[in-house]
């Protein structure tokens, strides 16, 4: 039997009062950092000689890619935790990160495609890096479709968790694609596997990329917190409807 007290608890979460200051803090931090990042991209960082002005897309494209892959890791981690513990909070986390994963994976593909068209003259090529990224997008979409069509409750969550785990296999393949295969995509410029640490050519380029990555990560954290609490509220409301019926 549902009582009004339970509903007030759900309403409190839905209103954003659970950890509200942290959320607002993340939002304003991401807004301030985004302002700084845009200043750096447009006014501070030098123009790259070979790629010209379109190289500035790089400062959006790379952080989006990093967060797209991070999402996949989160989905996989939360799915494992859900399969082991059966706690609903892990399922909510997996769902929230999968939805963000669709957003970020879509933006990776779009920014990459537009950059390629502007700079190299083609929209798309079926090389390893691009194709595996497209597969990542399909995995995210597949996860969300399974969650929509599968029965509500633990059964659907288990199906989703298995898909989430399978998707995690794709993330390292995407990262290593330029090492394993000869691709049209540029080689790794940053990170532990980058062959030439000075590949970015300028300290300013590296600093801007780093700040941009931090900015997008804070924005991602904000959206994740929002989506996670929304998902928890949806789940709580579903349970209330079921028990009220």
């Amino acid at each position, binding site marked *: 039997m549902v009582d009004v007290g339970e509903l007030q608890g759900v309403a409190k979460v839905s209103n954003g009062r659970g950890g509200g200051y942290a959320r607002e803090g993340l939002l304003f931090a991401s807004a301030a950092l985004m302002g700084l990042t845009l200043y750096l991209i447009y006014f501070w960082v030098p123009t790259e000689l070979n*790629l010209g002005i379109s190289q500035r897309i790089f400062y959006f494209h790379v952080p989006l890619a990093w967060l797209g892959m991070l999402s996949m890791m989160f989905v996989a981690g939360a799915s494992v935790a859900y399969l082991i513990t059966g706690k609903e909070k892990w399922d909510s986390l997996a769902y929230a990160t999968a939805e963000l994963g669709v957003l970020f994976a879509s933006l990776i593909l779009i920014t990459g495609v537009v950059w390629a068209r502007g700079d190299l003259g083609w929209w798309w090529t079926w090389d390893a890096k691009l194709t595996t990224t497209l597969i990542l997008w399909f995995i995210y979409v597949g996860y969300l479709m399974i969650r929509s069509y599968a029965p509500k409750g633990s059964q659907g969550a288990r199906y989703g968790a298995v898909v989430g785990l399978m998707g995690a296999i794709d993330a390292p393949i995407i990262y290593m694609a330029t090492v394993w295969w000869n691709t049209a995509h540029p080689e790794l410029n940053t990170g532990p596997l980058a062959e030439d640490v000075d590949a970015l050519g300028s300290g300013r380029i590296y600093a801007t990329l780093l700040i941009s990555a931090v900015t997008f990560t804070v924005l991602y954290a904000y959206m994740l917190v929002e989506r996670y609490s929304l998902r928890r509220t949806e789940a709580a409301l579903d349970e209330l409807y079921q028990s009220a019926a």
Partner: protein
Amino acid sequence: MSCIRALRNRIGVRSVVFLALLAVVATMFSGATETYASSDQSDVVPDTPMAPPEEHEDGDGDAELPWLFAVFFITWAAFFGYVFVMSRRQREMQREIEALSLALQEREQREAEAETKASATDG
């Protein structure tokens, strides 16, 4: 100010922050050409392994501006759209919770009245 307040009441503080960021992006767009034009040679980075030099066709960069704007516009539109959908869903759920709460209160009231009537009849 009242316009901003009305907007804030209507779509929420989060959406207003995102709108403000969109405005910043638009302002930056207007400055992008100048930045490129004013970049002197010492500010330009020499060869990097990102792409072979021969694949970069033009030198002035103006032809590439629409692609740069497209990317920034799409990214921001996607973020704003997503946050907007989330906040709308949150408001819908709030309404659902209020309606459910009201229905439950009415049901509890009816049950209490029925019990009172039943006890009065028994008495």
